[in-house]
């Protein structure tokens, strides 16, 4: 943060007063349409905010809004303040690296910050040091992720799943057509069966209608048709040889295909994120993603040899989650939730008070974490 840049600009009267009251703390002026904003270094935040509240010339007694913002590599907390005595407003911004999200709490200055800080903590993972009761506010405990961070997907998760499924199906159809007709997985079979069943039901119902049967008779008619269908299906299943054992290893093949599809899905996701970060429009974003997919496919075509099979688990901190990691996290969160539930029930059974119960649950969670590290 350069002090030189700050002094060059003509400051609005409020900031002149701030400079007068706080000559030692450098800040950077950012004009916004309604309130003058200043960027302050994190280590200066607490003295800065204290002076804003306590100094007679400033007297910002009203914290009207507190927001977190995710700038990908950095996180930001924005405080919007107003002074009832002087009628002036200010926005204070403090930035921190995304891997060190800590900021001092201001609850002791403005009680209004209480829920705002709790919410910002749970939504962005920004720890407000010194907050008396930093519990999640809107979501349940142990969510394990921060919904308002840009890395948390919204529409992408559905797109991603859809792309993955489509890709798996396409590869299953294209990759090994004659050799492995049964390579379609169990789920697809089930779906097919269910569809057939639905057709049988529909047909039977139509027939019944055509015959002018009563509702009761119609139901019976449909049931009979279903029964016949199921018997036939069972016969077919018994007659068909078990092909799975004979084939070499369709599972491996499938796993490869799935891995490829997953990679592709990741490329899509990454491209989309990049496009978002660049602030592209929807149309431009789509093009950008298509381009990335095309490049990826060309690469795969150019290097037909399968990629080195065992992927070294990259130890990058900020890389997007792989599906396996995601699954592991979900499993962990579920386990945690179970532990919390059990501990809570135990605490209730013991008749502990709310405070004791909370502690009891925290201890149980702590034990779980230690176990996880140990094993």
């Amino acid at each position, binding site marked *: 943060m350069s002090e030189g840049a700050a002094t060059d600009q003509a400051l609005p009267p409020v900031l002149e007063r701030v400079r007068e009251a706080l000559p030692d703390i450098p800040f950077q002026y950012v004009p916004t349409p309604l*309130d003058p904003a200043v960027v302050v270094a994190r280590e200066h935040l607490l003295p800065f905010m204290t002076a804003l509240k306590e100094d007679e010339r400033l007297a910002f007694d009203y914290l*009207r809004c507190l927001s977190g913002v995710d700038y990908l590599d950095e996180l930001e907390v924005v405080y919007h303040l107003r002074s009832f005595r002087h009628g002036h407003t200010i926005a204070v911004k403090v930035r921190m690296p995304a891997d060190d999200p800590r900021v001092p709490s201001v609850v002791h200055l403005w009680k209004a910050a209480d829920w705002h800080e709790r919410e910002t903590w749970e939504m962005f993972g920004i720890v407000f040091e010194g907050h008396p009761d930093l519990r999640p506010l809107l979501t349940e405990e142990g969510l394990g992720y921060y919904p308002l961070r840009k890395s948390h997907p919204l529409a992408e998760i559905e797109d991603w799943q859809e792309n993955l499924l489509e890709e798996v199906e396409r590869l299953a159809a294209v990759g090994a057509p004659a050799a492995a007709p049964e390579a379609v997985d169990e789920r697809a079979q089930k779906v097919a069966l269910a569809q057939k069943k639905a057709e049988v039901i529909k047909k039977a119902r139509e027939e019944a209608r055509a015959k002018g049967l009563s509702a009761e008779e119609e139901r019976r008619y449909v049931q009979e048709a279903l029964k016949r269908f199921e018997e036939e299906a069972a016969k077919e299943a018994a007659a068909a040889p078990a092909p799975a054992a004979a084939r070499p290893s369709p599972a491996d093949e499938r796993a490869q295909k799935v891995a490829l599809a997953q990679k592709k899905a990741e490329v899509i996701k990454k491209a989309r994120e990049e496009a978002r970060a660049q602030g592209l429009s929807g149309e431009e974003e789509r093009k950008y993603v298509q381009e990335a997919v095309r490049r990826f496919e060309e690469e795969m075509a150019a290097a037909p040899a399968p990629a080195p099979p065992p992927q070294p688990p990259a130890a990058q901190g900020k890389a997007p989650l792989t599906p396996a990691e995601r699954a592991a996290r979900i499993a962990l969160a579920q386990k945690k939730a179970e532990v919390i539930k059990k501990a809570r029930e135990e605490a209730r059974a013991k008749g502990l008070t709310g405070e004791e119960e909370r502690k009891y649950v925290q201890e149980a969670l702590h034990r779980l974490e230690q176990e996880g590290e140990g094993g």
Partner: protein
Amino acid sequence: MAAPAPEHRHELETIDLYINVGPQHPATHGVFRMVLTVNGELVEDCDPVIGYMHRGNEKLPENCDYRQAIGYHDRTDYLAQFNTEWTFCLAVEKLMGLEVPERAEYIRVILGELNRVASHMMWVGAFGTDVGFFGTPFMYAFREREVIQDLFEAVTGERMMYNYFRPGGVAWDLPDDFEEHCRYVIEHVRRGIDDLDALMTDNEVFLARCRGLSPVTPEQAINWGLSGPMLRACGVRHDLRRAEPYSIYDRFDFEIPVGTQGDVYDRYLVRMEEMRQSLRIVEQALRQMPRNGPIMAAGLKRVLRPPPGEVYARTESPRGEYGVYIVSRGGDKPWRHKVRGASFCNLSPLREMVVGNYVADAIIILGSIDIVLCEVDR
């Protein structure tokens, strides 16, 4: 059987009891839960639990373009839809430097103020039920609200989710008979307010239950971040329409009612007077409004792309300061979209307001805050 001697009764041991109010409870005005620790009838602790309505209303518009995001504001505060839409549009207009045409400004003021009346009507009705008037004020208030909603329906085609304001103006012009219809509404509602006034304001039971309950000092109110009628009831003459005038509020003559005690009764009085003042503003706006003219800023692109920057726009919604903080990085979607719900901030010091009162009064105190859970949880 002989009754136990009185001294024995004094020695009875009492224990703290937890009472779970909500999330499904008629007195919580939505899915809100509070865990009360009571000693006898006295509330010793209160832990508000919110989030049952959390739908990610801040995240969703970050994936919409600027006009699509308006609908989410209808659903944030579903009793002050025009005011919330207005705030969002104001934010985009400030970012883009848009000028809103005169006629559109007047349309916004008229609808926004009537929306305030409708919202307060809803509150008075529900609050009456909280206090113990079962049904009567509720029906009186809803009759008036219905009249206002008919007008809104005539203008927007919708009863609840209007989606009528746009950055730069309003979506389409008013119906031909709007003025006539509006005057009828004003007359009707004015009489309705008088009816409610006669029914409630001097009522013995109402006074006994509300007066002096949970007084809040101006210093506390400001430090807790209260706004709107909650803040004014404490004697702080602060109304964004006057303090930081937006739109064309500097052209109207209206008063800002304030309380003296900051208790529940003052909150009621402030809201009742605010309805009358809102009707005054509507009357003035009807007189001043240009009869025709553009209702949308000229030269707007099909997709709005505000330049990079940020803005915190706020308006005086029926519940207080409704704020929208938008960070734009130049794209067609907001990079960050934060909503400062007025009732979120008004509800946060609930513990301080409730502790030390009786359980039955806790319900009244909660009711007097005028919460909309969709806005609290977002």
